[in-house]
């Protein structure tokens, strides 16, 4: 070993030598669960089949057609309010839902005059051509395997959240991929559209677990019943999702900050704002309501 390696090994030993049995908090070992009955196995076979189909479809779904910038959609025939300019609009205490013209559940409307912020142009996205996801059974465990474009492989053995176990929803779906800051992440959803979503990074590490919430767990809007999924985590981070249809992409339209805290944000979809939310409390994590 080199001198640096020796120094490191000694420092690590010195640090851990400070942790002795008598310093640990008294605790009892967790109680072992009994083995599950075999009924799950057929379910996992079904899951594996669904995952294989998903893995085949993923490259097509994630490529999103030509992969170019989305075109603004045609305005609906009904009259719709206009979006305030991002350059001039700012959060204010006297803003009302009518000021912005949209709120949760409002029909999206076209706004072709604004540039669209596309996260996937500035950060990496797991594209169909660059990555693959496979979900299969491993013994009695659901395993998600990810392969990135550079050949990096990782896997994670999925642990259903307690709520999914309680509800008997033990069939996850690898729903889509999305971008967070500079890292591509993968969503695993348990229990349908209102279920818990686990977020993994490309190394298979669980990033966080997102419970369904009325405002941010998912947003439903879109053309012809198309579903839009978006995720806004409790710390205010914003994520763009690429839905399997390949036609709907959700991204932040605008996020405004006050002392580093996001206070006003708008979801957009292909040139349309979908809704806006405000945070007017200093809670940690912040909470939001439609505004």
């Amino acid at each position, binding site marked *: 070993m080199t001198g640096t390696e020796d120094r490191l090994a*000694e420092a690590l030993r010195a640090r*851990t030598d400070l*942790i002795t049995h008598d310093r640990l908090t008294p605790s009892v*070992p967790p*109680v*072992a669960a009994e083995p599950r009955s075999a009924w799950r196995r057929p379910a996992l076979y079904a899951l594996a089949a669904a995952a294989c189909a998903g893995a085949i479809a993923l490259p097509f779904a994630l490529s999103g057609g030509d992969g170019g910038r989305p075109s603004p959609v045609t305005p609906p025939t009904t009259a719709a309010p206009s979006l305030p300019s991002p350059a001039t609009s700012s959060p204010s205490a006297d803003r009302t839902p009518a000021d912005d013209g949209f709120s949760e559940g409002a029909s999206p409307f076209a706004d072709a005059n604004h540039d669209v912020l596309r996260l996937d142009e500035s950060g990496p996205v797991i594209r169909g051509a660059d990555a693959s996801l496979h979900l299969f059974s491993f013994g009695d465990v659901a395993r998600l395997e990810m392969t990135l474009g550079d050949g990096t492989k*990782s896997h994670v053995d999925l642990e259903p959240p307690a709520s999914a176990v309680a509800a008997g929803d033990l069939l996850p779906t690898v729903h889509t991929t999305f971008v967070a800051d500079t890292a591509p992440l993968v969503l695993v959803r348990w229990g349908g559209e209102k279920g818990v979503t686990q977020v993994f990074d490309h190394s*298979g590490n669980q*990033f966080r677990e997102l419970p369904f919430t009325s405002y941010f767990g998912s947003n439903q809007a879109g053309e012809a019943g198309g579903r839009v999924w978006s995720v806004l985590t409790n710390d205010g981070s914003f994520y763009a999702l690429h839905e399997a249809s390949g036609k709907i992409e959700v991204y932040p339209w605008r996020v405004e900050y006050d002392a580093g805290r996001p206070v006003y944000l708008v979801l957009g979809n292909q040139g349309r704002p979908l809704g806006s939310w405000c945070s007017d409390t200093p809670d940690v994590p912040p909470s939001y309501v439609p505004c």
Partner: protein
Amino acid sequence: MGTVLASDELADLYAAQRLSLVRLAVLLVDDLASAEDVVQDAFAAFAARPELREREAAVGYLRAAVVNRSRSALRRRRTARAYVAPHDAPPAGPDDRALLADEHREVLSALDRLAPRQREVLVLRYWSELSEAEIAEALGISRGAVKSTASRAIDALEKILEATR
């Protein structure tokens, strides 16, 4: 599938491995309370999944779980810190590192400045004394990635230590 640990064997495993795993977690999250939480969570998840409780793979699974959960704990801590006003920050706990020699404190401070993955690789290699293959399994990365990460991490550590002289 190998033989599955019985309930009493799980208790024995807990008694035998808890301290070692807490020490590993301390090197990754730095404070004892968080480290104990990480290890308890890892054991709880392990105990709840009989299909994971293979006797031969138990320690490896728990080690990987501790590394992953330590990383999650650090992320949560960073997120929380990003939104806590300075005057609301919780008071710092007693600093174990104050008990260490200057030389060791300097090395550990340098280690803190590495990327999480680099820190994990170095801890698993130079404290847990795992092989490249074992580190790769624990971190879910390739052996090549372990080797290159370790090499870059040692280089970075050397530079940081030189710069602090």
